[in-house]
């Protein structure tokens, strides 16, 4: 079955962010497809390469990156929500004259059209909210 996941929860603030990752990993382990993960609202912080949790705590952005690398996942961070909150790729950092970018490898910034497409393409859309 083809799933897409919408993550609206900020990592470390809301358990939902962790639950979303466990749900994604489990469905992939069971042989289902994950068409797209769409990070929206405060969920965009998941795409920050600068997250530096203590070593004995899960690194949620890194966990997503590893999962994406294993399964060739499409991790889309809503560009409008991300740029507001200071999650920038090189292109946006240039556009806004910022000193650096921080979007983690494996994630991409894109628009809400990617969510509409995920809805159209997936058998199930599961929201993890905050």
């Amino acid at each position, binding site marked *: 079955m083809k799933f897409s996941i*919408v993550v*609206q929860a900020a990592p470390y603030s809301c358990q939902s962010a962790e639950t979303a990752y466990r749900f994604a990993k489990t469905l992939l382990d069971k042989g289902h497809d994950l068409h797209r993960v769409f990070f*929206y*609202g*405060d969920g965009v912080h998941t795409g920050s390469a600068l997250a530096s949790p203590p070593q004995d705590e899960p690194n949620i952005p890194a966990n997503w990156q590893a999962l994406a690398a294993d399964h060739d996942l499409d991790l889309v961070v809503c560009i*409008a*929500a991300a740029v507001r909150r200071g999650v920038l790729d090189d292109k946006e950092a240039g556009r806004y004259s910022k000193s650096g970018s921080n979007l983690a490898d494996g994630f991409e910034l894109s*628009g*809400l*059209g990617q*969510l*509409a*497409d995920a*809805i*159209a*393409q997936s058998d199930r*859309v599961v*929201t993890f*909210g905050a």
Partner: protein
Amino acid sequence: MSDKKKVLIINRRAPYGRSNARDSLDVALTCGVFEMPISLLFADDGIFQLLGGHQAKEIGQKNLSANLAALPMYDIDQLFVCESSLNTHGLASDQLDHNPTVVDQKAIQQLIQSHDVVLTF
């Protein structure tokens, strides 16, 4: 887009205090661009999104009503409001803008059943 999924968006958060209301409307308008059939249900504190007379400039935000007013341009005219939420907050549907249809518990269940995808904000 090959498959026109019917999408129900449930709005349960008051406007302005959090970004949910605006995030939700942005999704609705985007799905509208792709000509996906969209219905909006306002429940709990979300019903306050439909109250008129917003002047959000002083709190550094844009009025939500401008986005709501844009819905018909995207052929989004299926707006519903939860009856028990109206009662909770002492509001009547004629106090709300955008002419939502009042729905009871059973009708809300039917709304969920009759759509392919349900998003909550």
